[in-house]
């Protein structure tokens, strides 16, 4: 296979911006739970965590620069996980 496939070099600055965004969102999620939002707080924290992990996957783990095939595989795994989660909760909600 072609070993020169991955010659893209990500700039330090890009990583620094992503890191700052990640840290800012960490503090936002801490601040959100400080306010009494009830059930919304859980949803908010999980949405922020999903956003943060997407940034890690996309930039730090280089999915942005990888080929389509790898992105498709990652998408499939996430789909399987979310499907299992939803089915489990359907099961528990209707017991």
């Amino acid at each position, binding site marked *: *296979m*072609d*070993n020169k*496939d*991955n*010659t893209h*070099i*990500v*700039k*330090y600055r890009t*990583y*620094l911006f*992503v*890191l700052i965004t*990640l*840290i800012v969102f*960490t*503090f936002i*999620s*801490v601040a959100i*739970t400080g306010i009494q939002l009830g059930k919304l*707080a*859980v949803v908010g*924290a*999980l949405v*922020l*965590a999903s956003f*943060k*992990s997407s940034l*890690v*996957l996309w*930039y*730090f*783990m*280089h999915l942005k620069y*990888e080929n389509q095939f*790898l992105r498709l*595989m*990652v998408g499939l*795994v996430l789909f*399987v*996980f979310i499907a*299992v*989660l939803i089915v*489990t*909760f359907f099961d*528990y909600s209707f017991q």
Partner: protein
Amino acid sequence: MSTVAVHRDDVGSKIGMWLFIFTELLLFGGLFIVYAVYRYKNPVAFHLAGEELDVTVGTLNTVILLISSATVAMSISAVQYGNKRATLSYLLITILLALFFMINKYFEWSGKFGHGMYPGSEKLTELGQGEVLFFGLYFAMTGLHALHIIIGVTILLIMLVRIMNNKINKTYFVQLENSGLYWHLVDIIWIFLFPLFYLIS
């Protein structure tokens, strides 16, 4: 060393690493589902038990892991630029941050143990089933995560030596990339562990 005859497949190597990462994601994913179901069934107990955890320590550890994730990514850019010194420095920072994380974890856990909070302890069983479940999952999930940190640090140390020996260099660095992927996985898992355990009160 002749590099012409050596078989090399960087893309295949990386796909293999990703496949392994998928199994890890589903392993922790299963645990997250267990957590979600028990929390759904014991909302009050989870809420109260969550207050026992120190948000400051959790936030600090989150920031530590995020920075370490960025520095390991930077070390890969550095190796691609052919800057060995920078590669080693970024990797060393990553390793030191990981040790920092483990020191925090040590104090956190020993604090809990000191208060009689550990799996199967008398104090915990007195509190009730919901608390037992919360702390059981807390110790199991953060423990498994800490085990991943220890493995990750070991791998990063091996990478450090290999970079020093020029085994990993500007033209051959897929091992460093794969180690980086593993480290980011550890980071992603913590990104979810943190709000679920520390931020639920």
